[in-house]
């Protein structure tokens, strides 16, 4: 079963730049997919279309059974509750502790206190940060901050995890650590994972499905792809 279905998707920004041309792509439930491609090839745009930060100019987008292209602004939260989203810049709240940052994602959707406590601790355990729950983001390394962001993204048990260059700011060692956690989430929970990355080494090592974009077009979609031969 496909969790993502894109049909003839085109995205032209208001200033006239076309970021994606006539994109067709299906992603099966439970898969782990790397999205690669050169700078400006439309990877982030594709992610933004999936979590409805942007609307397509034309075409159809179905994510987890939701017609995203037609989704009204006031209903976007229904889509977002099915997704966990991770960015290169972590996007943590600086005035909240690690625990509070993760709990925040549950509080704002109205979860109960006890439920919040057990789930937050479990998420933090998965990313290996249970010992740092009282730290503030500025007291953590980049890799640790990104792991907090991942904990926050998975705390509501999303069907799908969308990561836009999650290791973009990290050194190779930490990158691999973070990617291993994402892989584990995919394997143990069956969460569908999309990872946008520039990291050759990781892509080649993990041997996952690889989707390659070039200048706004899909040029390759391979089951066990690598970075080298699909290079941009």
């Amino acid at each position, binding site marked *: 079963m496909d969790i993502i279905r894109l049909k003839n998707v085109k995205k032209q920004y208001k200033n006239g730049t076309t970021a994606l041309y006539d994109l067709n792509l299906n992603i099966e439930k439970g898969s782990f997919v790397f999205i690669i491609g050169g700078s400006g090839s439309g990877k982030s745009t594709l992610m933004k279309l999936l*979590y409805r930060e942007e609307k397509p100019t034309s075409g159809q987008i179905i994510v987890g059974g939701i017609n995203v292209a037609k989704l009204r*602004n*006031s209903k*976007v*939260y*229904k889509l*977002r*509750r099915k*997704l966990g*989203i991770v960015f290169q810049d972590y*996007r943590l*709240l600086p005035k909240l502790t690690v625990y509070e940052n993760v709990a*925040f*994602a549950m*509080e*704002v*959707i*109205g979860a*109960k206190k006890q439920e919040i406590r057990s789930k937050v601790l479990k998420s933090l355990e998965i990313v290996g940060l249970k010992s740092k729950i009282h730290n503030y983001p500025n007291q953590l390394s980049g890799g640790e901050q990104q792991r907090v962001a991942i904990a*926050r993204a998975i705390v*509501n048990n999303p069907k799908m995890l969308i990561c836009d260059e999650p290791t973009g700011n990290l050194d190779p060692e930490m990158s691999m650590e973070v990617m291993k956690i994402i892989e584990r989430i995919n394997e143990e929970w069956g969460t569908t994972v999309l990872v946008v990355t520039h990291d050759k080494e990781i892509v080649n090592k993990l041997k996952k499905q690889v989707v390659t974009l070039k200048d706004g077009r899909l040029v390759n979609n391979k089951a066990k792809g690598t970075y080298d031969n699909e290079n941009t």
Partner: protein
Amino acid sequence: MKILRMIGRGIRDAIKSVFRNFSLSLASISCITITLIIVAISIILSYNVTNFTKEIEKDLTIVVFVNNDATEEDIQNINLELKKIENIVQKETIYKSKADVKKEMQKESEIFNSVMEEWNNESNPLKDTFQIKVKNVEKIKDTAKKIEKIDKISVVRYGEGMVDKLISAFSSIQKVTYGAVIALILVTIFLIINTIKLTIYSRKREISIMRLVGASNFTIKIPFIIEGIILGLLGSIVPVLIVIFGYPYLYRVMNGYVFTPLVTLITPTPFIYTIVAITIIIGIIVGMIGSSSAVRKYLKV
């Protein structure tokens, strides 16, 4: 339950933010305070004007004296003519023959009683009368003129000559106050919009993360709307105190009337509680309108 948790969170955030942007909050609160003081005074004024207009209207009677040479038929005719005049409250028109008037006056005082004892129908100098109430006191002069034109009528007399002037003066004052109140409310709403806008701005990052993790628009808006309500409530404290202590004080000092006992003030209790309730409700509504429109404008979520 879920909604209660959300509102609880909203209240917590709103209180924090009122203190975080304290100077602007204070400006909004002061503006609401001034507005509500003037609103409360206008409402008190308006209620009192309405009250004593009604009181006066109740007493204001046109008395029509029928000429002595009028026959039964003439009286019937007068009655018919009166029925044609629009501004007369027909149900309350009272006809009193001079014998009735005599009896009434005799009852009223012992002196009248002894003097009038000797009058018979011929020597009774009193006249048959109609007592008439009008619907709109401001038009009482017109109505009196119309009545004067009817045949076989001698004098038309109505209450104090000043009263109608007084009432129309009051109604102009009321209109001016309404205008001022509306202008003030608009300024206040504008200030609240700016206060909430600043709050929204300072929490942009938080809001975008809330959106990202799936908070509904309603959840995101709650704290800002509650903040508006809190500003409104804080702004109504001083006006409420002024009403609760000021009006009864004024009432005591003036002995319950203005200039003449004819113009009575409304007794303070429970009147002031009505005013307090209205003041607080207006405060809350103004706060809510301000914050909702700020949220709509600046929180395109």
